Each structure stands twice: as structure tokens, then as C-alpha cells.
């Protein structure tokens, strides 16, 4: 799964006229957007505007829920993920997700980090030393190694929320993802936790394409380079974060970012 990006593919994620319905309710309307690699793109907008739904299109996890119809195109690294030959397992290996509420699995920290890679390989595919190495480097990447190295066999659900959220990011890393989707990853954390996770996400930006849904406009301004504003299932504006916040092109964006509704 090396990243074979053709030069013309300047975008990590591209959608073309993407529509999505929950039953008869249209949650996404004609979404056409290009998201650049190796930077953080934030998705903002009032509740129910389709931010999370759009995020969930990028690894097709929407299809696990009832009654979802999708039309249009989503290209990840140039490949349309709605093509017949796309395997959902492989797709989700490359496009990981971090949730609002930290959801480590109720198994040990060690097994949490390896869960993803184990579900993609045969039993016994890695020697013990390889496994230990993967766990260590993943936990080091999220700055969790020092705190947990003496208790890797402890249940992950005993960690603090901040540590849990770091672990949720760490368990994606052995899969060598291209894209990491984050659905309000800080909203369950206290101020200090938010700061640490933001620092971590910023550090990870170098290696991945990160798309982050957030309700916190301060956070969007602090950490994202590009910003997408959505309203009623449509993309209203997409641009540099500073431009969207300081000099929005659309009236709705202006009203929202200045806090007049939402």
C-alpha cells in the first residue's frame, strides 16, 4: 500500500457531485470538493449540516447504517472508492477514523494498537519483536509511550480520556493510512487534553491528510490550514482558513463565523 500518487493528482480527496440520502432525506447535496494532502482541513457548520455524513463518505462507513443511498464520485488519491473493485477492508485501512467520544476497544493497550493490523493479516504474520516494535513506534508517535510502556497489558478503557483518544489515533498508525478522518476528536476532553491532541494532530499533518469536523471555531482557526463551511447539506465555502474566517466570500459564512447563528 505505498502511496503511488501520480503528479496530476494534487488532491488527496476529491468528490464530484456527491449526493446522499438517509431514506428520503437528502443529507448531502451536490458536494464537489478537492481536499489537499498533508495539511489539515477543517469542516465547520451548524449541527445537522452534513459534516459528519460527508466525513463518513470518505471511508464508506455510511453504508453500515440503514437505508443510505449515495450517488456521485469520491476519489481518494485518484481512485474512485465507489468503483466495483474497491474492497472496503482495504479502503478503511487507508482511510482511518477518530471519533468524538474516544472508543478504545475493551482489550489491552497493546492489543488495541495491533487490532487493525491483525484484522488485515493472517494469524501469526508478525513475530513478537515486530509486534512490539509496531506498538512502540505507534505509541511514540502519539506521545503515549512513556506513560503506558509499563502497563501495555492494562485494559485501554482504564486510561484517561485524553490518553484514550491518543490511543485511538495510535491504533490507526500500524495500518499506514493515507487519510485520517476526525469527527470532533476533542469535544469530550478538557482544555489541557484539547491542547495536547491539537499539538499531536498538528505533528501528524506532515505524514497524512487530515480532515477534521469541529464545532469549535477557535479550534478550526488554530489548527487547520484549509476550512470548509457547510450548511444544509451543501458546501458554502472552501478556502484557506484565514480567508474563510477573516474575509469570507459568502454572506452565510460571514454570519456563521462571526457567531450570529449556529
Amino acid at each position, binding site marked *: 500500500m505505498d502511496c503511488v500518487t501520480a503528479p496530476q493528482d494534487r488532491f488527496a480527496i476529491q468528490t464530484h457531485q456527491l449526493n446522499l440520502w438517509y431514506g428520503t432525506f437528502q443529507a448531502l447535496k451536490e458536494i464537489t470538493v478537492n481536499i489537499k494532502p498533508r495539511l489539515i482541513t477543517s469542516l465547520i457548520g451548524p449541527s445537522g449540516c452534513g459534516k459528519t455524513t460527508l466525513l463518513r463518505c470518505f471511508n464508506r*462507513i455510511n453504508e453500515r447504517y440503514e437505508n443510505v443511498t449515495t450517488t456521485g464520485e469520491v476519489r481518494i488519491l485518484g481512485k474512485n472508492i465507489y468503483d466495483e473493485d474497491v474492497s472496503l477492508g482495504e479502503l478503511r485501512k487507508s482511510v482511518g477514523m477518530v471519533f468524538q467520544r474516544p472508543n478504545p476497544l475493551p482489550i489491552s493497550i497493546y492489543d488495541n494498537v495491533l487490532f487493525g493490523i491483525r484484522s488485515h493479516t493472517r494469524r501469526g504474520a508478525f513475530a513478537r519483536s515486530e509486534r512490539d516494535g509496531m506498538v512502540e513506534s505507534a505509541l511514540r508517535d502519539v506521545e503515549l509511550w512513556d506513560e503506558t510502556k509499563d502497563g501495555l497489558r492494562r485494559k485501554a478503557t482504564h486510561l484517561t480520556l485524553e490518553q484514550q483518544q491518543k490511543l485511538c489515533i495510535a491504533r490507526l498508525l500500524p495500518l499506514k493510512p493515507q487519510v485520517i478522518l476526525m469527527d470532533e476528536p476533542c469535544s469530550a476532553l478538557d482544555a489541557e487534553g484539547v491542547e495536547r491532541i491539537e499539538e499531536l494532530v498538528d505533528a501528524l499533518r506532515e505524514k497524512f491528510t487530515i480532515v477534521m469536523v469541529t464545532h469549535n471555531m477557535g479550534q478550526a482557526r488554530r489548527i487547520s490550514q484549509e476550512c470548509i463551511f457547510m450548511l444544509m447539506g451543501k458546501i458554502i465555502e472552501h478556502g484557506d482558513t484565514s480567508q474563510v474566517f477573516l474575509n469570507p466570500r459568502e454572506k452565510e459564512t460571514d454570519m456563521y463565523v462571526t457567531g450570529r447563528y449556529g
Partner: protein
Amino acid sequence: MTNAPDDQQGPESYYVVGEAAENGQGARACSLPTFTAGRHERYKRLVEGTAKAVLGLMAAALVVPVVIILGLLVYNAWPALSLSFLLENPKNYMTAGGIWAPLVGTFFLVVISLLAAAPIGILAGVYLNEYARDNWLTRIVNLAVVNLAGVPSIVHALFGVGAFVLFAGMGRSVLAASLTLGVMTLPVIITSTREALAAVPMSFREACWNMGATRWQTIRTIVLPNSISGILTGVILQVARAAGETAPILFTGAVFFVRVKDHGWESFFPYSLDDRCMALSMHLFTLATQVRGVSSEVQYGTAVVLIGLVLIVNSASIGVRVYLRSRKKW
């Protein structure tokens, strides 16, 4: 002293303080709230107390019949209870001896019925909770489960006669009776399995799916290990039910009397699958209504053993649940 607002006063007089309060202008209004109970507040307290007492009494009343029944049974059975009562066969047309043959018979019936029903029930429950989408087929299956649970046991018995004894050619046998019991316990096993699975937080499944794990990998590694206590509890509770039922085995395999070995190792395997067998519930019915001259101690003794088995099994299920729950935490 009342803190109820008086009609004659405007709202500005509720909090008359300082000078106005001192020279009596606030005397009719309560100058500051005192938070003492008014008339309606006292009435609410009375109703609350009554409700708590009545509800608590009803809950406590549940214990009374259990204690009385158990006490009466054990008291009356006491002279008959001994190890040999358990380990000997009935003798002299049931009037003497013990209950070995029906005890082993019940054990066989219950174990075989669970071996048949538990895998089907658990796997069906997993399918319905984890895989099935909300479509017409699922709805039909759900309807079938609910209706199967509501079928009277005597109807299960007749179904057993038709399906297993006659159609499948098993004859009246341990196997036919066990399968009939299995069909009877199936819907409850399915339902309790689904409930146990539904109690596993959705966020675990989302985490797994988002890393590319298949549904089955998710079920095997995360969902089942975290719901096994609930599933087992449901299954074990069906042991008690299967052991106590008489009707489903009456026409399908249980008989009045079978002579079996009651000593030596062979006594532990007295029945083969195509034999007819005795069973505790049936034996109790026989002793109480079909045979003359059975002492009341023997009847009570049989009842105590049956109810004791049920209690032991239920306690075991609670124990299993407590143990497994103490090991899992999220």
C-alpha cells in the same frame, strides 16, 4: 406564617426588606422566604411516603410465597431426603426407593436439548442482532420468534410428536423429547442472546469497522467476549425451564417407569438416544396422581430435588454472570 402569595399583593411586596419590613408594611407578605412546607407540600410528602410503602411492600411480598413453598416442601420431605434417595431406583411400584432413574433422565433431556438449542439460538441471535437489516425477512423471523415464545408447552408437545416422533421416525425417545424441549427453549435463547449483544456499545463496533475489520472479526474479537455473560445467563436459565416442563416430554419420550442400573459406572449412562426415559417432572406427576400408596415424604422429596436443581442452576447462572461481569469493564 405562610409563604403563599396573597392575591391582594403585587409581586413587589414579596421581598419587603429593610425599612418597609421594620415598620410593618411587609407584615402581610412574608418578608423573606422561610422554605417551610405549605399545605400542598405536606400532602405531596404524604403521597410520596404512601407510594414508597406500597411499592416496597409489593416487592417484599414476592419473597413470601417462595419462602413458604420452599419451607413447606423441605419440612415435609425431610424424612425422605438422603443420599440413597438420590442414588436408588424407585422400588415396589414407586412406593419405596429413590429417584435415580428420573434424575438421570432429566439430566439427559436437559443437556441434549441445550446442545441442540443453544448453538442454533445463539447463532440466530447473533445474525439477527449483528447482520440482519430491517427488511421483511427479518420482520418475519422476529414475528416467528415472538410467536414461538408464546406457544403453550402442550402444543410444543404435539408438534414434537408430529415432527420428531412420527415424521422424523425417532419414535418416543430421549432424542425426540430433548429436541421438543429444545424447540421450546429456542425463542428465549434467541431473545436473551440479542439483548446481551445489544448491550455492547455501538462505538466498539464502529471502531472495528473503521479499521477495516469485517463484521465477523468484530463479533468474534469484541462483541462476543463482551456479551458472553449475558448469553450464558440466558442459556442457563433455560436449563431450569426445560427441567421443569412436563407436557413437552409427556408424549415424546418420558415414560412411567424404566428399569435402569442404579449402581456401577453404567448407571451414569442408563439411556441411549433412542430409549425412553424417566424424568423428574413426569415422575412427580406420576407419584402424585397415578400410583397409590406413595408416602407423602417421597412425593415431597421428589419435588424438593426438582426445585433444588432449578435453584442451583439459577444460582450458578447468577454466579457466572457476576464473575464474567467483574472481569469486563468499559
